């Protein structure tokens, strides 16, 4: 060894090359730190943007609801409720007639014979319908007044704004030309209120008429239908009893009652209606979308959890290497299919298949089948399950794979079967990993847009869970679907636009929550493994 080499050996300074004045470790740290920083900034920007765009929503919504009340639309709405429950009664009556007609046709009666049969009580039905005309006429009239008031008010507000803009620009002359009427909403509300005695009179006459007609019900001569007639009488009398409720609500209604932020908030969070571009009043209630999303996601999870977790257990514990090499990439390949293709498949093939299949003889025992809709929560749920399976499978398989081999060996060495080892050792040990896999699968499903937009049927209505299993075969709309569908057509900054951002916000918070839970569970799992 030369002398120089000898001294060099004790030179402990780093000899590695420097990058931008940093040594290798620092450079690496900088690189990865930079990446992390960028992600954090992007996330913060997204959050900020969502908040900013959504922020004005509640104020604007409160203002709209206030106008709805001040202009008397809310007042008219109460009368409309009464009128539409009367229409329901008519519909019920007509359904009896319809049923009778089909029955007669099945019995082989000719058209004129059937007509003669029906004629015996047709007059009763017409009389009943006629009773309701004064009510519906009156409601229509009042509706015109309220809408007119609201529209004039909005228009004048627009002109006022225009004039102020001109003034602010210093174009005083032009501003002076802009005519702004002063719309006093209370005048119109006064008109509505003045009509109240008329309305009460109409109600009284209606009640008397219903009581008179139902005291002398026509008999059809078919036991089943006569039973329905009796039921109709009950419903009609119930309607009469409810009239008083409407009347008190009208009397107590106050156009000047304050509308707080809480009302706007509740109307968004618990609102049952999502109605846009209506000539009367727009409503932004997230409930139908939220429940729709949840219903579709639940269907997807019910299918995807057993399949995904089952496949993970099978691949990890039972499958031969040859099976593993085939099945694993195959399942993972599913996640490479673009969601629009899956949605297209759902529309073109799967939805129709489900509808047809529901008519097969084996299902004839269930009275909810055959179904009439092609695109339903079920269709979308099945396809979403397909998309969730790879996520659940891959993550659950990882979790199972992380179970130390020593546990498996110990169990088998005790004389446990493979199944016992799987169920008693492998699954419990990896349970938290499996649960977080399921949660992340759920997050994937709830955030998926294209498939639900194409296949869920897009009917904005809270699924009627009282229908039992049939609920799953109703069309629904989802939070993701509505954003994708409506965001393209809304005016920037309008209340509708902001409402969609609020929906986005709810989705965002939901995803955050799911991820947070998944992480917490994994953390707990690591600690328990010591």
């Amino acid at each position, binding site marked *: 060894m030369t002398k120089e080499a000898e001294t060099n050996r004790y030179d402990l300074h780093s000899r590695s090359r420097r990058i931008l004045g940093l040594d290798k470790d620092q450079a690496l740290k900088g690189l990865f730190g930079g990446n992390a920083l960028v992600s954090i900034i992007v996330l913060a920007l997204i959050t900020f943007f969502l908040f900013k765009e959504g922020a004005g929503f509640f104020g604007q919504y409160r203002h709209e609801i206030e106008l709805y009340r001040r202009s008397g639309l809310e007042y008219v709405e109460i009368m409309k409720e009464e009128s539409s429950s009367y229409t329901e009664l008519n519909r019920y009556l007509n359904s009896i007639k319809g049923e009778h007609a089909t029955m007669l046709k099945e019995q082989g009666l000719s058209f004129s014979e059937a007509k003669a049969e029906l004629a015996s009580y047709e007059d009763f039905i017409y009389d009943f319908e006629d009773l309701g005309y004064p009510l519906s006429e009156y409601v229509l009239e009042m509706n015109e007044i309220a809408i007119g008031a609201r529209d004039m008010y909005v228009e004048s507000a627009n002109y006022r704004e225009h004039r102020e803009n001109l003034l602010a620009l210093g174009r005083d002359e032009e501003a002076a030309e802009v005519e702004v009427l002063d719309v006093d909403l209370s005048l119109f509300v006064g008109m509505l209120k003045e009509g109240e005695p008329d309305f009460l009179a109409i109600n009284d006459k209606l009640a008397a008429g219903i009581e008179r007609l139902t005291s002398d019900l026509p008999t059809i001569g078919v036991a089943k239908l006569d039973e329905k007639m009796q039921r109709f009488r009950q419903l009609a009398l119930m309607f009469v009893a409810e009239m008083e409720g409407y009347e008190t609500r009208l009397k107590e209604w106050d156009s000047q009652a304050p509308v707080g932020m809480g009302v706007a908030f509740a109307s968004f969070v618990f609102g049952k209606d999502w109605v846009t571009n209506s000539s009367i009043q727009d409503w932004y209630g997230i409930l139908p979308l939220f429940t729709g999303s949840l219903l579709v996601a639940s269907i997807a999870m019910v299918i995807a959890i057993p399949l995904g977790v089952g496949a993970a257990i099978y691949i990890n514990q039972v499958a031969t290497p040859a099976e593993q090499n085939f099945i694993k990439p195959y399942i993972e390949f599913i996640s490479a299919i673009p969601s629009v293709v899956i949605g297209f498949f759902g529309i073109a093939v799967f939805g129709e298949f489900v509808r047809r299949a529901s008519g097969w003889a084996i299902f004839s025992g269930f009275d909810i089948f055959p179904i009439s809709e092609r695109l339903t929560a079920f269709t979308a749920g099945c396809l979403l399950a397909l998309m969730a399976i790879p996520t659940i499978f891959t993550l659950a398989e990882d979790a199972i794979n992380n179970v130390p081999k020593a546990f498996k060996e*110990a169990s088998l060495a005790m004389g446990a079967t493979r199944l016992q080892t799987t169920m008693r050792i492998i699954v419990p040990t990896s349970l938290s990993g499996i649960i977080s896999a399921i949660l992340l699968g759920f997050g994937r499903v709830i955030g998926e847009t294209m498939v639900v937009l194409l296949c869920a049927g897009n009917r904005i209505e809270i699924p009627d869970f009282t229908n039992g299993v049939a609920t799953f075969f109703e069309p629904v709309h989802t939070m993701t679907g509505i954003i994708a569908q409506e965001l393209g057509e809304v005016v920037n900054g309008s209340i509708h636009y902001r409402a969609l951002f609020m929906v986005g916000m709810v989705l965002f918070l939901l995803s955050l929550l799911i991820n947070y839970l998944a992480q917490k569970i994994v953390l707990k799992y690591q600690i328990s493994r010591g």
Partner: protein
Amino acid sequence: MANDKPEPKRPLIRVSDFDFYYGEKQALFDINMDMKENEVTAFIGPSGCGKSTLLRCINRMNDLVEVARIGRGKIEVNGADIYDPRVDTIELRKRVGMVFQKSNPFPKSIYENVIYGLRIQGINKKPVLDEAVERCLKGAALWDEVKDRLDTSGLSLSGGQQQRLCIARALAVEPDILLMDEPCSALDPVATAKVEELIHSLKNDYTIVIVTHNMQQAARVSDKTAFFYLGKLIEMAKTDEIFMSPKNEQTEAYISGRFG
């Protein structure tokens, strides 16, 4: 073994002309040996010589290795060929318990760890389980240390306690044979002494095969010692004889520490 006479001791495990392969690679060559009832047999030899392989052949744990296969010969336990296709490995493993080099209690309570073998046999009666827990933990010399915390996780115990818990777990299924693969390699001298003491006391009821790299340990606990080298059984004899006057040069070199 109802019709067995206590004397003379008969071979409970018999290995004859046994060849074993991992894929193309032969790991064991023509092994012939007997392990007698209620005796402790120690396997010694340099790393990679096939001790664990032979041990894991006795309870067919090597079945889990995809490429493993037997070339020739057989292993009999209590007179029955364990590689006979009709043999149920589940039943075999209940008779032949195993304790691993690295202690591996399940992530369950101490109580559940001990009775795991009973639970999988469908035994769920509380009094039976309670009795088994006490008996096995006493048998594994662990009872006094854990009797007040049977509900805590088996993973919360020290390394030595964990290894004794694994022994207790193996005892619960009441095997005839206990296979131990370097059970003390991760333990300190105190814990090692405890396990060795335990092996001594277990000898009365079980036939034990132990793999060890510790010559003193082999000398202390075993009745017979077998020396392996490169997959072959070089010499097997009474432990005293092997350590006092080994017949084979390689054996002597190995136990005196002069082995290359």
